Protein backbone atom coordinates (compact mmCIF):
# COMPACT_ATOMS: atom_id res chain seq x y z
CA UNK A 1 0.00 0.00 0.00
CA UNK A 2 1.34 3.36 -1.03
CA UNK A 3 1.87 6.02 1.59
CA UNK A 4 -0.43 9.00 1.25
CA UNK A 5 1.99 11.95 0.83
CA UNK A 6 -0.30 14.16 2.90
CA UNK A 7 -0.17 11.76 5.85
CA UNK A 8 3.52 11.10 5.50
CA UNK A 9 4.19 14.82 5.74
CA UNK A 10 2.03 15.24 8.83
CA UNK A 11 4.97 15.06 11.29
CA UNK A 12 6.78 17.75 9.26
CA UNK A 13 3.69 19.97 9.21
CA UNK A 14 3.13 19.41 12.93
CA UNK A 15 6.68 20.56 13.56
CA UNK A 16 6.11 23.62 11.39
CA UNK A 17 2.85 24.51 13.18
CA UNK A 18 4.55 24.15 16.54
CA UNK A 19 7.22 26.62 15.44
CA UNK A 20 4.78 29.05 13.86
CA UNK A 21 3.27 29.55 17.28
CA UNK A 22 6.45 31.22 18.50
CA UNK A 23 6.71 34.97 18.12
CA UNK A 24 10.37 34.83 17.11
CA UNK A 25 9.86 32.29 14.36
CA UNK A 26 12.34 32.83 11.52
CA UNK A 27 12.15 31.69 7.85
CA UNK A 28 15.53 29.97 8.37
CA UNK A 29 13.74 27.52 10.64
CA UNK A 30 11.48 26.48 7.75
CA UNK A 31 14.56 25.71 5.70
CA UNK A 32 15.95 23.66 8.56
CA UNK A 33 12.71 21.65 8.58
CA UNK A 34 12.94 21.23 4.81
CA UNK A 35 16.38 19.71 5.26
CA UNK A 36 15.05 17.46 7.99
CA UNK A 37 12.03 16.38 5.88
CA UNK A 38 13.25 16.69 2.27
CA UNK A 39 10.22 14.90 0.81
CA UNK A 40 7.91 17.42 2.43
CA UNK A 41 9.79 20.58 1.58
CA UNK A 42 7.16 21.71 -0.93
CA UNK A 43 4.32 21.30 1.57
CA UNK A 44 6.33 23.04 4.28
CA UNK A 45 7.30 25.99 2.09
CA UNK A 46 3.83 26.53 0.64
CA UNK A 47 2.12 26.28 4.05
CA UNK A 48 4.57 28.78 5.50
CA UNK A 49 4.20 31.07 2.47
CA UNK A 50 0.43 31.12 2.95
CA UNK A 51 0.86 31.82 6.66
CA UNK A 52 3.10 34.78 5.85
CA UNK A 53 1.03 36.12 2.98
CA UNK A 54 -2.11 36.63 5.04
CA UNK A 55 -0.17 39.42 6.72
CA UNK A 56 -0.67 41.37 3.51
CA UNK A 57 -4.33 41.87 4.40
CA UNK A 58 -4.23 45.36 5.78
CA UNK A 59 -6.62 46.56 8.41
CA UNK A 60 -7.94 50.13 8.30
CA UNK A 61 -7.81 52.33 11.38
CA UNK A 62 -11.06 52.36 13.33
CA UNK A 63 -12.96 55.60 12.85
CA UNK A 64 -13.52 58.41 15.34
CA UNK A 65 -17.16 57.30 15.59
CA UNK A 66 -16.07 54.11 17.34
CA UNK A 67 -14.06 56.02 19.95
CA UNK A 68 -16.85 58.55 20.46
CA UNK A 69 -19.39 55.72 20.72
CA UNK A 70 -17.32 53.90 23.32
CA UNK A 71 -16.89 56.94 25.56
CA UNK A 72 -20.58 57.76 25.28
CA UNK A 73 -21.43 54.18 26.24
CA UNK A 74 -18.98 54.33 29.17
CA UNK A 75 -20.42 57.64 30.30
CA UNK A 76 -23.99 56.31 30.12
CA UNK A 77 -22.98 53.14 31.92
CA UNK A 78 -21.32 55.11 34.72
CA UNK A 79 -24.33 57.38 35.10
CA UNK A 80 -26.69 54.43 35.14
CA UNK A 81 -24.58 52.54 37.67
CA UNK A 82 -24.40 55.57 39.98
CA UNK A 83 -28.14 56.12 39.79
CA UNK A 84 -29.11 52.53 40.40
CA UNK A 85 -26.50 51.80 43.05
CA UNK A 86 -28.11 51.06 46.37
CA UNK A 87 -26.70 49.64 49.57
CA UNK A 88 -26.29 45.90 49.13
CA UNK A 89 -26.86 45.23 52.76
CA UNK A 90 -29.06 47.15 55.15
CA UNK A 91 -28.50 46.47 58.75
CA UNK A 92 -31.37 46.38 61.17
CA UNK A 93 -30.07 46.97 64.68
CA UNK A 94 -33.39 46.21 66.30
CA UNK A 95 -33.85 42.76 64.85
CA UNK A 96 -30.20 41.76 65.13
CA UNK A 97 -29.85 39.04 67.76
CA UNK A 98 -27.06 36.92 66.40
CA UNK A 99 -24.25 38.57 68.29
CA UNK A 100 -23.60 40.20 71.60
CA UNK A 101 -23.94 43.98 71.36
CA UNK A 102 -21.13 44.42 73.87
CA UNK A 103 -18.65 42.58 71.63
CA UNK A 104 -19.89 44.47 68.61
CA UNK A 105 -19.16 47.80 70.35
CA UNK A 106 -15.67 46.61 71.32
CA UNK A 107 -14.98 45.39 67.79
CA UNK A 108 -16.30 48.68 66.40
CA UNK A 109 -14.07 50.80 68.66
CA UNK A 110 -11.07 48.65 67.73
CA UNK A 111 -11.83 48.97 64.01
CA UNK A 112 -12.30 52.72 64.38
CA UNK A 113 -8.89 52.95 66.09
CA UNK A 114 -7.25 51.04 63.25
CA UNK A 115 -8.99 53.11 60.63
CA UNK A 116 -8.21 56.48 62.21
CA UNK A 117 -4.58 55.48 62.77
CA UNK A 118 -4.28 54.68 59.12
CA UNK A 119 -6.28 57.74 58.11
CA UNK A 120 -4.17 60.23 60.04
CA UNK A 121 -0.86 58.62 59.06
CA UNK A 122 0.95 61.06 56.76
CA UNK A 123 1.12 59.88 53.14
CA UNK A 124 4.55 58.95 51.85
CA UNK A 125 5.82 60.90 48.81
CA UNK A 126 5.32 57.79 46.61
CA UNK A 127 1.69 57.51 47.69
CA UNK A 128 1.09 61.19 46.98
CA UNK A 129 2.59 60.85 43.49
CA UNK A 130 0.52 57.72 42.78
CA UNK A 131 -2.71 59.35 43.97
CA UNK A 132 -2.05 62.45 41.90
CA UNK A 133 -1.24 60.30 38.89
CA UNK A 134 -4.52 58.40 39.24
CA UNK A 135 -6.48 61.61 39.66
CA UNK A 136 -4.86 63.06 36.55
CA UNK A 137 -5.70 59.93 34.55
CA UNK A 138 -9.27 60.15 35.67
CA UNK A 139 -9.46 63.83 34.71
CA UNK A 140 -8.10 63.03 31.27
CA UNK A 141 -10.68 60.25 30.79
CA UNK A 142 -13.59 62.45 31.85
CA UNK A 143 -12.45 65.44 29.83
CA UNK A 144 -11.93 63.25 26.75
CA UNK A 145 -15.34 61.65 27.14
CA UNK A 146 -17.05 65.04 27.45
CA UNK A 147 -15.17 66.43 24.46
CA UNK A 148 -15.76 63.53 22.12
CA UNK A 149 -19.06 62.00 23.00
CA UNK A 150 -21.34 64.54 24.59
CA UNK A 151 -24.32 65.85 22.66
CA UNK A 152 -24.59 68.82 24.99
CA UNK A 153 -22.54 71.94 24.15
CA UNK A 154 -22.25 72.86 27.82
CA UNK A 155 -20.79 69.41 28.53
CA UNK A 156 -18.24 69.89 25.78
CA UNK A 157 -17.38 73.34 27.15
CA UNK A 158 -16.89 71.75 30.55
CA UNK A 159 -14.56 69.17 28.97
CA UNK A 160 -12.53 71.99 27.43
CA UNK A 161 -12.32 73.84 30.74
CA UNK A 162 -11.16 70.66 32.45
CA UNK A 163 -8.44 70.30 29.83
CA UNK A 164 -7.34 73.89 30.45
CA UNK A 165 -6.79 73.13 34.13
CA UNK A 166 -4.44 70.23 33.37
CA UNK A 167 -0.75 70.73 33.93
CA UNK A 168 0.03 69.24 30.56
CA UNK A 169 -2.05 67.73 27.79
CA UNK A 170 -1.83 64.13 26.73
CA UNK A 171 -2.10 63.17 23.05
CA UNK A 172 -5.73 62.11 23.27
CA UNK A 173 -6.82 65.49 24.61
CA UNK A 174 -4.68 67.33 22.07
CA UNK A 175 -6.41 65.42 19.26
CA UNK A 176 -9.86 65.82 20.85
CA UNK A 177 -9.34 69.60 21.07
CA UNK A 178 -8.15 69.62 17.47
CA UNK A 179 -11.24 67.71 16.31
CA UNK A 180 -13.42 70.07 18.34
CA UNK A 181 -11.83 73.10 16.70
CA UNK A 182 -12.22 71.56 13.25
CA UNK A 183 -15.66 70.03 13.47
CA UNK A 184 -17.72 71.16 16.47
CA UNK A 185 -20.98 72.66 15.23
CA UNK A 186 -21.13 75.20 18.06
CA UNK A 187 -19.10 78.40 17.58
CA UNK A 188 -18.75 79.01 21.32
CA UNK A 189 -17.29 75.54 21.79
CA UNK A 190 -14.81 76.14 18.97
CA UNK A 191 -13.82 79.52 20.45
CA UNK A 192 -13.34 77.91 23.84
CA UNK A 193 -11.17 75.21 22.24
CA UNK A 194 -8.99 77.94 20.71
CA UNK A 195 -8.63 79.60 24.10
CA UNK A 196 -7.48 76.35 25.73
CA UNK A 197 -5.19 75.50 22.83
CA UNK A 198 -3.60 78.94 23.09
CA UNK A 199 -3.00 78.21 26.75
CA UNK A 200 -0.92 75.19 25.69
CA UNK A 201 0.58 76.75 22.58
CA UNK A 202 4.10 75.97 23.78
CA UNK A 203 3.30 72.39 22.81
CA UNK A 204 4.42 72.08 19.13
CA UNK A 205 1.52 69.81 18.17
CA UNK A 206 -1.08 72.14 19.67
CA UNK A 207 0.52 75.11 17.92
CA UNK A 208 0.54 73.27 14.61
CA UNK A 209 -3.10 72.26 15.04
CA UNK A 210 -4.06 75.88 15.60
CA UNK A 211 -2.28 76.95 12.44
CA UNK A 212 -3.67 74.10 10.33
CA UNK A 213 -7.20 74.85 11.47
CA UNK A 214 -7.24 78.26 9.80
CA UNK A 215 -8.36 77.29 6.26
CA UNK A 216 -11.08 75.00 7.64
CA UNK A 217 -13.01 77.66 9.53
CA UNK A 218 -16.15 79.18 8.10
CA UNK A 219 -17.33 81.31 11.01
CA UNK A 220 -16.09 84.96 10.77
CA UNK A 221 -15.82 85.11 14.56
CA UNK A 222 -13.57 82.06 14.70
CA UNK A 223 -11.55 83.29 11.72
CA UNK A 224 -10.93 86.65 13.40
CA UNK A 225 -10.02 84.99 16.69
CA UNK A 226 -7.53 82.70 14.99
CA UNK A 227 -5.97 85.70 13.26
CA UNK A 228 -5.48 87.35 16.66
CA UNK A 229 -3.98 84.13 18.00
CA UNK A 230 -1.50 83.97 15.12
CA UNK A 231 -0.39 87.54 15.80
CA UNK A 232 0.08 86.62 19.47
CA UNK A 233 2.08 83.51 18.55
CA UNK A 234 4.12 85.35 15.88
CA UNK A 235 4.34 82.12 13.90
CA UNK A 236 5.18 82.76 10.25
CA UNK A 237 3.90 79.33 9.19
CA UNK A 238 0.40 80.75 9.56
CA UNK A 239 0.92 82.99 6.51
CA UNK A 240 0.51 80.07 4.13
CA UNK A 241 -2.66 78.87 5.81
CA UNK A 242 -4.17 82.36 5.85
CA UNK A 243 -3.38 82.75 2.15
CA UNK A 244 -5.14 79.45 1.53
CA UNK A 245 -8.17 80.71 3.43
CA UNK A 246 -8.16 83.94 1.41
CA UNK A 247 -8.02 82.01 -1.86
CA UNK A 248 -10.56 79.34 -1.08
CA UNK A 249 -13.30 81.18 0.73
CA UNK A 250 -15.40 84.21 -0.02
CA UNK A 251 -14.64 86.05 3.21
CA UNK A 252 -16.52 88.95 4.68
CA UNK A 253 -14.75 92.24 3.93
CA UNK A 254 -13.84 92.85 7.56
CA UNK A 255 -12.38 89.36 7.91
CA UNK A 256 -10.50 89.70 4.66
CA UNK A 257 -8.90 92.97 5.86
CA UNK A 258 -8.01 91.37 9.19
CA UNK A 259 -6.36 88.44 7.43
CA UNK A 260 -4.32 90.69 5.15
CA UNK A 261 -3.29 92.76 8.13
CA UNK A 262 -2.25 89.57 9.98
CA UNK A 263 -0.10 88.46 7.04
CA UNK A 264 1.63 91.85 7.00
CA UNK A 265 2.26 91.68 10.74
CA UNK A 266 3.67 88.17 10.56
CA UNK A 267 5.95 88.96 7.64
Amino acid at each position, binding site marked *: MKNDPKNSCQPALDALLAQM*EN*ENFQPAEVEALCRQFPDCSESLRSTYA*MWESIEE*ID*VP*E*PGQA*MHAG*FYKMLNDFQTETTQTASPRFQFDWWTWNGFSLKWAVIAGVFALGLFSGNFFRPETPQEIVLTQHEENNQEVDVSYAKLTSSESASDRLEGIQMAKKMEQLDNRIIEALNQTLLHDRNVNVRLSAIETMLHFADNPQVRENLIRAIPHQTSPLVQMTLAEVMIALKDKRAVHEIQELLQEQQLELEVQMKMEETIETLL
Partner: protein
Amino acid sequence: MLRVKEGDLSKMGLLYERHNRDLFGYFYRLTNNATRSEDLVQKVFYRLLKYRHTYRGEGKFVYWMYSIAKNTWLDLLKKKRIIDYRDDASSYEEFPNPEKNAEDLLIATERKNLLKTALQQISPEKREAIVLSKFQGLKYQEIAQLSNCTENAIKSRVQRGLLELKDIMLKLESR
Protein backbone atom coordinates in the same frame (compact mmCIF):
# COMPACT_ATOMS: atom_id res chain seq x y z
CA MET B 1 -9.66 45.11 34.90
CA LEU B 2 -9.65 44.29 38.61
CA ARG B 3 -10.07 48.02 39.30
CA VAL B 4 -13.07 48.09 36.95
CA LYS B 5 -14.51 45.08 38.73
CA GLU B 6 -14.11 46.88 42.05
CA GLY B 7 -16.21 49.75 40.72
CA ASP B 8 -13.72 52.14 39.15
CA LEU B 9 -15.46 52.11 35.77
CA SER B 10 -13.35 54.97 34.39
CA LYS B 11 -10.43 52.54 34.15
CA MET B 12 -12.27 50.84 31.30
CA GLY B 13 -11.17 53.85 29.23
CA LEU B 14 -7.54 52.80 29.69
CA LEU B 15 -8.31 49.21 28.69
CA TYR B 16 -10.13 50.50 25.65
CA GLU B 17 -7.20 52.69 24.61
CA ARG B 18 -4.87 49.73 25.00
CA HIS B 19 -6.88 47.10 23.15
CA ASN B 20 -9.39 48.71 20.77
CA ARG B 21 -7.16 48.49 17.70
CA ASP B 22 -6.25 44.85 18.25
CA LEU B 23 -9.87 43.97 18.77
CA PHE B 24 -10.92 45.94 15.71
CA GLY B 25 -8.26 44.08 13.68
CA TYR B 26 -9.56 40.76 14.99
CA PHE B 27 -13.12 41.52 13.90
CA TYR B 28 -12.06 43.11 10.64
CA ARG B 29 -10.16 39.99 9.59
CA LEU B 30 -13.11 37.86 10.56
CA THR B 31 -15.79 39.95 8.90
CA ASN B 32 -14.00 42.04 6.26
CA ASN B 33 -16.34 44.85 7.24
CA ALA B 34 -15.04 47.92 9.07
CA THR B 35 -18.38 49.32 10.20
CA ARG B 36 -19.50 45.95 11.51
CA SER B 37 -16.14 45.57 13.27
CA GLU B 38 -16.56 48.92 15.01
CA ASP B 39 -19.98 47.84 16.27
CA LEU B 40 -18.58 44.55 17.50
CA VAL B 41 -15.73 46.27 19.37
CA GLN B 42 -18.27 48.45 21.12
CA LYS B 43 -20.41 45.45 21.99
CA VAL B 44 -17.40 43.68 23.50
CA PHE B 45 -16.55 46.62 25.75
CA TYR B 46 -20.17 46.89 26.78
CA ARG B 47 -20.15 43.20 27.75
CA LEU B 48 -16.84 43.61 29.58
CA LEU B 49 -18.52 46.29 31.68
CA LYS B 50 -21.76 44.41 32.12
CA TYR B 51 -20.14 41.13 33.11
CA ARG B 52 -17.22 42.64 35.02
CA HIS B 53 -18.27 40.77 38.17
CA THR B 54 -17.43 37.47 36.41
CA TYR B 55 -13.79 38.47 35.84
CA ARG B 56 -11.64 36.39 38.16
CA GLY B 57 -8.24 37.85 37.37
CA GLU B 58 -6.82 34.47 36.49
CA GLY B 59 -4.55 34.42 33.44
CA LYS B 60 -4.13 37.23 30.97
CA PHE B 61 -6.85 39.86 30.61
CA VAL B 62 -6.71 39.55 26.81
CA TYR B 63 -7.69 35.90 27.07
CA TRP B 64 -10.90 36.88 28.90
CA MET B 65 -11.46 39.72 26.44
CA TYR B 66 -11.15 37.40 23.44
CA SER B 67 -13.46 34.84 24.99
CA ILE B 68 -16.11 37.59 25.14
CA ALA B 69 -15.16 38.80 21.66
CA LYS B 70 -15.53 35.30 20.28
CA ASN B 71 -18.99 34.91 21.79
CA THR B 72 -20.01 38.32 20.49
CA TRP B 73 -18.99 37.26 17.00
CA LEU B 74 -20.75 33.91 17.29
CA ASP B 75 -23.92 35.66 18.42
CA LEU B 76 -23.75 37.79 15.31
CA LEU B 77 -23.22 34.76 13.10
CA LYS B 78 -26.18 33.01 14.67
CA LYS B 79 -28.38 36.07 14.45
CA LYS B 80 -27.59 37.21 10.96
CA ARG B 81 -26.11 34.07 9.45
CA ILE B 82 -23.53 36.31 7.92
CA ILE B 83 -20.62 34.46 6.46
CA ASP B 84 -19.95 36.51 3.42
CA TYR B 85 -19.38 40.13 4.32
CA ARG B 86 -18.97 42.87 1.80
CA ASP B 87 -15.77 44.81 2.18
CA ASP B 88 -16.53 48.42 2.97
CA ALA B 89 -12.92 49.45 3.43
CA SER B 90 -13.37 51.87 0.55
CA SER B 91 -14.98 54.25 3.01
CA TYR B 92 -11.68 54.38 4.87
CA GLU B 93 -8.83 56.47 3.61
CA GLU B 94 -5.99 54.59 2.03
CA PHE B 95 -2.88 56.52 1.16
CA PRO B 96 -0.94 55.20 -1.82
CA ASN B 97 2.75 54.56 -1.34
CA PRO B 98 4.51 56.90 -3.78
CA GLU B 99 7.53 54.59 -3.91
CA LYS B 100 5.54 51.89 -5.66
CA ASN B 101 4.71 52.34 -9.28
CA ALA B 102 1.14 52.08 -10.51
CA GLU B 103 1.45 48.53 -11.86
CA ASP B 104 3.01 47.14 -8.66
CA LEU B 105 0.35 48.89 -6.68
CA LEU B 106 -2.39 47.40 -8.82
CA ILE B 107 -0.99 43.87 -8.48
CA ALA B 108 -0.52 44.25 -4.73
CA THR B 109 -4.04 45.62 -4.29
CA GLU B 110 -5.50 42.83 -6.37
CA ARG B 111 -3.64 40.20 -4.34
CA LYS B 112 -4.81 41.75 -1.07
CA ASN B 113 -8.38 41.68 -2.33
CA LEU B 114 -8.04 38.03 -3.36
CA LEU B 115 -6.61 37.18 0.06
CA LYS B 116 -9.50 38.94 1.77
CA THR B 117 -11.97 37.06 -0.42
CA ALA B 118 -10.20 33.74 0.19
CA LEU B 119 -10.14 34.27 3.95
CA GLN B 120 -13.88 34.84 3.92
CA GLN B 121 -14.43 31.58 2.03
CA ILE B 122 -12.96 29.23 4.62
CA SER B 123 -15.13 28.15 7.54
CA PRO B 124 -15.55 30.61 10.46
CA GLU B 125 -13.83 28.15 12.85
CA LYS B 126 -10.72 27.86 10.70
CA ARG B 127 -10.66 31.59 10.00
CA GLU B 128 -10.87 32.37 13.68
CA ALA B 129 -8.15 29.89 14.63
CA ILE B 130 -5.80 31.45 12.06
CA VAL B 131 -6.61 35.02 13.07
CA LEU B 132 -6.27 34.39 16.81
CA SER B 133 -3.01 32.57 16.33
CA LYS B 134 -1.43 34.73 13.66
CA PHE B 135 -2.55 38.23 14.62
CA GLN B 136 -3.76 38.22 18.20
CA GLY B 137 -0.78 36.27 19.53
CA LEU B 138 -2.78 33.56 21.33
CA LYS B 139 -1.27 30.11 21.81
CA TYR B 140 -3.04 27.04 20.40
CA GLN B 141 -3.78 25.91 23.94
CA GLU B 142 -5.47 29.24 24.74
CA ILE B 143 -7.50 29.16 21.53
CA ALA B 144 -8.50 25.58 22.36
CA GLN B 145 -9.82 26.71 25.75
CA LEU B 146 -11.74 29.56 24.13
CA SER B 147 -13.20 27.19 21.56
CA ASN B 148 -13.91 24.40 24.00
CA CYS B 149 -11.91 21.84 22.02
CA THR B 150 -8.49 20.21 22.07
CA GLU B 151 -5.19 21.83 21.13
CA ASN B 152 -4.81 19.29 18.32
CA ALA B 153 -8.16 20.32 16.89
CA ILE B 154 -6.95 23.93 16.73
CA LYS B 155 -3.69 22.93 15.07
CA SER B 156 -5.69 20.95 12.57
CA ARG B 157 -7.98 23.95 11.89
CA VAL B 158 -4.97 26.20 11.28
CA GLN B 159 -3.31 23.69 8.99
CA ARG B 160 -6.44 22.83 7.02
CA GLY B 161 -7.40 26.50 6.89
CA LEU B 162 -4.05 27.38 5.34
CA LEU B 163 -4.38 24.53 2.86
CA GLU B 164 -7.85 25.67 1.85
CA LEU B 165 -6.67 29.25 1.54
CA LYS B 166 -3.91 28.11 -0.77
CA ASP B 167 -6.38 26.21 -2.99
CA ILE B 168 -8.88 29.07 -3.05
CA MET B 169 -6.13 31.53 -3.94
CA LEU B 170 -5.02 29.31 -6.83
CA LYS B 171 -8.58 29.14 -8.15
CA LEU B 172 -9.12 32.89 -7.76
CA GLU B 173 -5.81 33.74 -9.41
CA SER B 174 -6.49 31.48 -12.37
CA ARG B 175 -9.78 33.21 -13.17
